[in-house]
């Protein structure tokens, strides 16, 4: 790829930025034009990402569509992007949800220009973080996402928005700054040992640092990602941010931003420091399972639907973490699949909560009841999404959770059994919520005037629901493209077994499962 020509991925990153620049030029009064512009560019990005899917060779596990341009030559920093089976669908999820999030922002009336500007910048930030293969570049995108989200929560959020926005930024920064130190340290060590100064992820993965150094570096990376996921006990920023964020903000936060944490583990923390990751696996698995159960129990007690969904995220992402850290094909594949599922089902849940909030200006479960009579379409869709979220067979959630539990059972049956109770708990809190909101008598007079979903709202939800069903009955196109990359990653992890202390407790079981 010539240095001046934009490659496929660069163009994808550029589309939202171009849209944002155009937005700035449109006069403030024309709010319709702003919407059209933002919608056009996010849709264009989605179409372009379909083109990328089309060009992607699903049989290969290596990085594809790689673009490499020197950025700061003397310091070994490059503009290096690429995509593989692990990041492919996360990129697609992002571009898929962005137009939906823009459409769902119809109720935002205030300062719409800035709002859409930040949405578009946010999209580039997230996409960039998914495709960056240079650690410096990754860090830049990682932080770039923070600012638009900060504004989205802080300006357009609920009553405690400023507190929630600051908490979100500080938590994330606390982790990521230490990761920055670790990134620099890693590049420095690479330069000392091989005389090559680079931030290229693939080259750095081949560096075999002694175990004690790996542990510290892994901890720095893991802290940053664990806060983002969020892994118990680093989750306390999440409910605040979710509850205060505007609907589209919650959707993006839950569906995509959180995935960056788990993605960070798969892409960076594990391949860079395999020995440390294997050694830390028991601790992380334990935290993941605690998170699953804790998140579910707390979700059960929530009176606010949005908060309930927020805590359910903690629980669901615990499953993802469990899958990733059992280090076998089913587990990791299931984890990645579950990232997509959670993105879709939780995204849809937040959309639905937003729609009912726009009507009633409350999210308290006790204010509702008996909505089925008044809002049949809404109720039906909510039921479907609820089933997806609790992992009913035939819908997407089941495939992911099943794979994860299958993979995990081979390694750590005890924790897996505990995690499985989380599935039961999730059925309890989701269905209990559903029953209190949808069934029962239509007692509250205010609810009797509610209108069902209009065409725009159905249009917003239809693609998400379609995908939820499709991914439930026909997961093969997804899993088959993910598999080669996961295979490759696991092979790398177990190939680098130079470090003797690495695999005492967990790896014994895994090497068997690694046979493909």
């Amino acid at each position, binding site marked *: 790829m010539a240095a001046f020509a934009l490659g496929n991925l660069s163009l994808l990153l550029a589309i939202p930025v171009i849209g944002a620049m155009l937005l700035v030029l449109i006069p403030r009064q024309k709010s319709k034009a702003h919407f059209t512009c933002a919608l056009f560019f996010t849709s264009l990005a989605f179409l372009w990402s379909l083109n990328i899917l089309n060009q992607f060779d699903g049989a290969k596990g290596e990085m594809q569509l790689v673009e490499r341009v020197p*950025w*700061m030559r003397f310091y070994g920093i490059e503009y290096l992007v690429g995509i593989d089976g692990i990041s492919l669908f996360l990129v697609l999820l992002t571009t898929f949800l962005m137009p939906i999030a823009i459409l769902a922002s119809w109720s935002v009336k205030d300062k719409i220009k800035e709002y859409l500007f930040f949405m578009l910048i946010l999209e580039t930030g997230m996409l960039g973080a998914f495709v960056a293969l240079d650690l410096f570049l990754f860090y830049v995108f990682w932080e770039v996402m923070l*600012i638009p989200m900060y504004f989205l929560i*802080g300006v357009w959020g609920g009553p405690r*928005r400023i507190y929630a926005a600051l908490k979100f930024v500080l938590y994330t920064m606390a982790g990521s700054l230490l990761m*920055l130190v670790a990134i*620099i340290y890693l590049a420095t060590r690479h330069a000392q040992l091989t005389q090559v100064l680079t931030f290229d992820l693939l080259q750095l993965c081949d560096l075999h640092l002694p175990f004690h150094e790996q542990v510290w570096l892994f901890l720095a990376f893991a802290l940053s990602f664990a806060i983002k996921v969020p892994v118990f006990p680093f989750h306390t920023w999440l409910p605040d941010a979710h509850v205060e964020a505007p609907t589209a903000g919650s959707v993006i936060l839950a569906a995509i931003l959180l995935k960056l944490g788990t993605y960070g583990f798969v892409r960076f923390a594990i391949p860079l420091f395999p020995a440390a990751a294997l050694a830390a696996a028991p601790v992380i698995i334990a935290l993941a399972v605690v998170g699953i159960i804790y998140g579910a129990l707390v979700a059960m007690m929530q009176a606010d639907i949005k908060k309930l969904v927020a805590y359910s995220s903690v629980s669901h992402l615990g499953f993802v973490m469990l899958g990733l850290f059992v280090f076998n094909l089913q587990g990791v594949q299931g984890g990645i699949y579950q990232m997509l599922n959670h993105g879709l089902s939780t995204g849809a849940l937040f959309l639905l909560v937003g729609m009912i909030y726009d009507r009633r200006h409350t999210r308290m479960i006790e204010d509702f009841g008996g909505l089925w009579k008044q809002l049949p379409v809404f109720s039906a869709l909510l039921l479907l999404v609820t089933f997806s979220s609790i992992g009913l067979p035939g819908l997407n959630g089941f495939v992911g959770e099943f794979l994860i539990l299958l993979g995990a059972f081979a390694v750590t049956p005890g924790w897996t059994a505990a995690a499985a109770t989380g599935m039961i708990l999730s059925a309890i809190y989701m269905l209990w919520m559903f029953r209190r909101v949808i069934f029962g008598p239509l007692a509250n007079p205010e609810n009797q005037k509610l209108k069902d979903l209009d065409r725009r709202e159905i249009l917003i939800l239809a693609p998400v629901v379609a995908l939820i069903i499709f991914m439930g009955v026909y997961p093969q196109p997804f899993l088959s493209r993910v598999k080669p990359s996961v295979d490759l990653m696991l092979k790398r992890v177990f190939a680098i077994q130079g470090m003797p202390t690495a695999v005492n407790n967990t790896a014994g079981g895994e090497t068997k499962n690694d046979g493909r």
Partner: protein
Amino acid sequence: MDVNLLPLLPATQVLLTALVVMLLDLFLKENEKGLLAWIGLLGLVLCGVETMLLWGSQDGAFGDTLLLDNFALFFTQIFLGAAGLTILASIHYVRETRINEGEFYALILFATVGMIVMAAANDLIVFFLGLETMSVAVYILTGMWRASSRSSEAAMKYFLMGAFATGFLLYGIALIYGATGSTNLNEISANLVEPMTEWPLYLAGGVLLLLIGFAFKVGAVPFHFWIPDVYEGAPTPVTGFMSVAVKAAAFAAWVRILMHKLSPFDSDWYGPLWLMAIATMTVGNLLALSQPSVKRMLAYSSIAHAGYLLIALVVGEEWGGPSLLFYLVTYAFMTVGAFAVLASLTDQDGPRENYSDFAGLGFKRPFLAAAMSLFMLSLAGFPPLAGFTGKFYIFRSAIFAGHTNLAIIGVLNSLLSVIYYLRVVVAMYMEEGGVEGKSFRQSPYLYIAVALAVFGTVYLGIIPARALEWSRVSFFSLD
């Protein structure tokens, strides 16, 4: 010995401009005085062109007491840029606060002359000359807003504290002269071959006094107490100028004299410097947290930034030096910009510099607020802005040189700083009220200054390669 006047060219150019401005001031009518700013800017631009033409020369004047090398030229350009942006941003400010325009611009230029000499000085006496030229001009600038008692108080404090620091420096120079028989840095460093433990006590004492003097000038803890009051009291554009150019000049001299020429000292006495760096960062950031006034917050944050720069000094020559130079450039843009925005808010009936005055600015003055947000985010170290690249290179140099602990303390400090920098953004975009629309200065020149600062902040964040290369070349032109 031929008298080579070329190394004097940049300083002379600015000096002549200053004299022209001062003289013309006597003959111009009150309403014509706006011309003076443009004459001053023209002189600065000319000097900027000269420094570019001279780039790459390696020369000395008066028996190598004044050097012309890329290091001096690099700093000269920082001073010129800071002075130029300050003049642009103050055109309306000085008119409205009834500060004497001619004297104001002339003093900015005189201070710049002093700084240029400081960066080029290879002799302790010449350095001292430059320092005093700069300091006296800045003392007066601080107190120029005669209608404001804060300004006079600040000038008095600054003068007393500055005189104190000068005393330290002079004693230091005297002791070093006593020990080595020279004030020329080449000769001094030639006499310093033995390890520091063998030095006579008064030589070590002299160098220590020099260190204290420098620490005073850059505002390093525990010699920082003058900074908040002085920065808060001074006319706002002057505060920007002080916090950028004066600090840069002091660091230039520190690097050339202490770090480079007396480097044995640097490596042996690394402990105190290490402590000073940590204390400066931490104290600056902690105190900045609790300030109700944005101007005072920026004053404390400038202490914190001096702390980050001290990390580069601890790291030492090969890695720390270039990153220090680069950081000063990035710091110049974002800080001058931030103070320019602050200056646009100041009201005649009182200072408008609290967080609450910024409330709602984001939708009343979108450009100024967006620019201020960029400066704040850049100062806090968010990519892809200049402040991030600057910090990145400092921390990178620290880790590369094995000072990972300093880098960790540094990043934790920038986390602290995020809190108070974002408070400005919160006020601008997420709160209501604040200053009424009419109490803004509608100065197109200030907008130009802000726009230039924004450009620098973004450019150095995204495409820093060239500026980095320049800072490397400049640093290694020290012989």
